[in-house]
């Protein structure tokens, strides 16, 4: 349901603003967690297991403790006891560090060496001899693994769906596409390695941490160390990227707190790049089977989508790849399954557009295959299967403009001139092709609080435990507050990333700005009422100013249920050299409908960043697990390729106007949708260029040279 009423006409939102912290970021003044000096700071260096499964037999601390500068070696034999059951979204045993001698995977933390300097800590960690009793392990994921089982019930799990009569619809279908797709292990690799500094100061635990939500991290630490929540303060002013990896798993933070509690001096722990490949979650490999049954004209009768992924033996995390199937296309019947198998591998986690990114690769590739089978244009096929209500939920849409995205994208990309035949365009050694895919991402909101102070000097200060992990949140929230207060953004001070500001949703799930904006808007309304009720005028404010608070918890709970997503259309043109196997993306275009766009400058950048991830997922990214050791064979940035500058051509992103007040701020969130469908658009373009369908990512040299083999 699209609400006809436009949000109020404003000056700040909807116009481009350069970042508030821009100058600090280009001059090096912006201090990230590992940049902040502290007197008496000690340095912790993690030691991780080299075996895939077993028990720690011995830790030879004596040699290391005798080394210059070494202050302590924490290990399961001397670590602080932690409270079981803590976790950001339910209990997560990954937080129970150094609590027992069990080793559940290669790269599991087994000790922390603390020393006066980084060099000394690292030398100590390198010298620490740990012996293990090794046990047989299984790290090899495959689609037919006998251990695959349904997921455990959890608020995050997508329940399996049996709707209509899938078997009968399949039997009645004129065309059936039945395919398997795989995506590999993928790793966030935020440029800033995870870092934390912890110290006790005036009876409070003070933590400076690189995370996506300081309030949530403070809550977890309080639970884990059995502290009163008020005694823990977590801050994260500047964060060098997160993508889902900074908040759920906190080995650096937990061990820094443990070390400072034992040593009574500030301790900083920074993960190495290699450690980031086993300790902060990752996107698990997926094996997906998609069966689409359709009438001769392409109208879908049935959508079947089964996704399987590995998890660890420590904690269950299942990649919810069927999310995409639940909202994209109408069909008479659905059969959706999520399966998971615990292996002796690190625990996966949320990675940019979890579920959506791999799910869209499978489903949007299958739609392209169906279009070719039916003999209909891939865009026309999608338009033909546009649903009236949520295909699985049956709920009304808060707004849905996928059709407009596809049509506007087709116009701007030049789709009408496209020759549908595969493998017929050449430019020198390159075969050329174009592809399209649809995108969606849930538009959620989390309960948040915010406070705004009208200062005595006529300015305003907004306090909200938001995180700016590169999204431009600081700047966007300034625009939102300015409009809500009907003042200029320059008169608004934005303070974020301090758990003392109270409950707020994380910078995650594409819900951050949407959640914080709602709370800021409510606080602004409350503040303006307070100010209006004051005797006298603004010049008479008390020295401490006037502050109003807001909490959206109840407002959120009172909302009617809606199917609320952002939608988009992705277009790609690729060049493939069949002789060398090289694939180059020549251009990409994304058109999105994500409600209100607060800051066009940073929003466009984020869309394009997501699309760059889609390109990278399509062509480059692949964690290679070495079954001979159970470890990762390419766990560094030379082995695990993310797109480099030369891989990324002209990428354009734009959006269509969309007014949706399901969230009164009008914001749907846009941090993740840019990756959704991107890999499928590229893979579909590779098919159009070469006539070879690539169902396994990434589309590597080897796969192109071998004709798309697994």
């Amino acid at each position, binding site marked *: 349901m699209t609400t006809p009423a436009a949000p109020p006409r404003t000056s700040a939102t909807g116009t481009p603003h350069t970042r508030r912290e821009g100058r600090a970021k280009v001059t090096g003044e912006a201090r990230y967690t590992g940049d902040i000096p502290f007197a008496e700071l000690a340095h912790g260096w993690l030691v991780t297991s080299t075996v895939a499964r077993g028990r720690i037999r011995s830790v030879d601390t004596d040699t290391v403790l005798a080394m210059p500068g070494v202050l302590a070696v924490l290990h399961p034999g001397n670590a602080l006891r932690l409270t079981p059951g803590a976790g950001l979204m339910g209990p997560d045993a990954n937080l129970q560090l150094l609590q027992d001698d069990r080793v559940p995977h290669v790269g599991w933390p087994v000790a922390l060496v603390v020393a006066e300097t*980084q060099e000394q800590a690292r030398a100590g960690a390198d010298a620490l001899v740990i012996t293990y009793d090794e046990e047989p392990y299984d790290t090899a994921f495959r689609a037919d693994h006998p251990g695959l089982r349904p997921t455990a019930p959890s608020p995050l799990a997508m329940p399996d769906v049996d709707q209509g009569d899938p078997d009968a619809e399949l039997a009645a279908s004129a065309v059936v596409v039945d395919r398997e797709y795989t995506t590999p292990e993928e790793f966030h690799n935020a440029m800033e390695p995870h870092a934390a500094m912890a110290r006790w100061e005036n009876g409070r635990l003070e933590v400076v941490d690189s995370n996506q939500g300081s309030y949530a991290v403070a809550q977890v630490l309080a639970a884990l160390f059995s502290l009163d929540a008020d005694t823990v303060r977590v801050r994260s002013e500047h964060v060098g990227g997160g993508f889902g990896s900074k908040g759920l798993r906190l080995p650096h933070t937990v061990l820094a707190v443990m070390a400072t509690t034992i040593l009574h001096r500030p301790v900083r722990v920074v993960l190495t*790049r290699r450690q980031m490949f086993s300790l902060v979650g990752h996107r698990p490999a997926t094996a997906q089977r998609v069966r689409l049954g359709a009438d001769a004209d392409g109208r879908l009768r049935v959508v079947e989508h089964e996704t399987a992924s590995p998890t660890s033996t420590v904690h269950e995390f299942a990649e919810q790849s069927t999310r995409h199937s639940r909202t994209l296309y109408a069909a008479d019947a659905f059969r959706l399954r999520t399966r998971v198998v615990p292996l002796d591998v690190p625990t996966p986690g949320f990675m940019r557009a979890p579920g959506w990114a791999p799910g869209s690769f499978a489903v949007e590739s299958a739609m392209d295959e169906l279009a070719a089978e039916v003999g209909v244009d891939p865009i026309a096929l999608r338009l033909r299967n546009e649903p009236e209500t949520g295909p699985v939920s049956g709920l009304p849409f808060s707004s849905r403009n996928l059709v407009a995205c596809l049509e506007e994208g087709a116009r701007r990309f030049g789709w009408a001139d496209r020759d549908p035949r595969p493998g017929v365009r050449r430019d020198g050694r390159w075969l050329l092709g174009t592809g399209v895919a649809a995108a969606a991402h849930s538009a959620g909101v989390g309960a948040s609080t915010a406070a705004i102070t009208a200062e005595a000097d006529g300015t305003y200060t907004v306090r909200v435990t938001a995180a700016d992990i590169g999204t431009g949140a600081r700047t966007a929230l300034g625009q939102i507050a300015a409009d809500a207060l009907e003042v200029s953004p320059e008169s608004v001070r934005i303070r974020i990333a301090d758990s003392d500001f109270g409950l707020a949703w994380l910078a995650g799930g594409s819900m951050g700005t949407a959640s914080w904006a709602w709370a800021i808007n409510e606080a602004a309304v409350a503040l303006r009422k307070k100010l209006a009720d004051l005797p006298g005028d603004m010049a008479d404010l008390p020295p401490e100013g006037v502050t109003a608070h807001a909490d959206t918890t109840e407002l959120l709970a009172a909302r009617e249920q809606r199917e609320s997503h952002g939608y988009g259309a992705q277009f790609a043109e690729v060049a493939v050299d069949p002789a060398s196997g090289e694939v180059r993306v020549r251009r990409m275009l994304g058109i999105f409908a994500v409600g209100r766009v607060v800051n066009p400058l940073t929003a466009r950048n984020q869309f394009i960043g997501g699309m760059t991830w889609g390109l990278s997922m399509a062509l480059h990214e692949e964690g290679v697990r070495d079954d001979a050791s159970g470890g990762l064979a390419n766990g560094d940035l030379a082995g695990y390729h993310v*797109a480099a500058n030369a891989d990324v051509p002209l990428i354009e992103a734009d959006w269509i106007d969309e007014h949706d007040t399901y969230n009164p701020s009008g914001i749907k969130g846009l941090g993740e949708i840019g990756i959704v469908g991107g890999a499928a658009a590229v893979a579909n373009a590779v098919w159009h260029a070469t006539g070879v369908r690539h169902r396994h990512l990434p589309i590597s040299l080897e796969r192109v040279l071998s004709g798309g083999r697994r």
Partner: protein
Amino acid sequence: MTSTRSTEISLRVNGETHSLTVDNRTTLLDALRERLDLTGTKKGCDQGQCGACTVLLDRQRVNSCLQLAVAAEGRDVTTIEGLADGEELHPVQQAFVDLDGYQCGYCTPGQICSAVAVIEELAREWPSAATDDVRRPPAVSEEEIRERMSGNLCRCGAYVNIVRAVTQAAKNEQVNA
């Protein structure tokens, strides 16, 4: 031979000379960050695989994570903190702000130092892997800049705006040259 596991060195950083005794193991990156409190230079991988630690050494860009501080003795270092002229940003810095050539900002100091050097490398007509014919001077093109900036990974995926910012600064430099 006497053992000297640490060495007294003199480093000229952003025009200022510092005398310090460093553990021979200390990289230039760690010396800048931990000893001189110049934390604008970032550690992204510590292995020469990401470019976040890029600084200018005798005006040429290098990965400071692989440069031993002791081996930089007597050389001239410019870090991100040394690019602006007082309050006035370096043209590359200003272009990054204006064109939003970043997101999280962590790779940004390395990107900007790299870009400053790239513009000079182009002015010196150094070829690159994107140069069609290495016998001829390279063009100042987006393709050249993409290739030359490829030693600086940006995981946020801000390459498109980075290339715009560097191209704008490079073309301005050409005009002013």
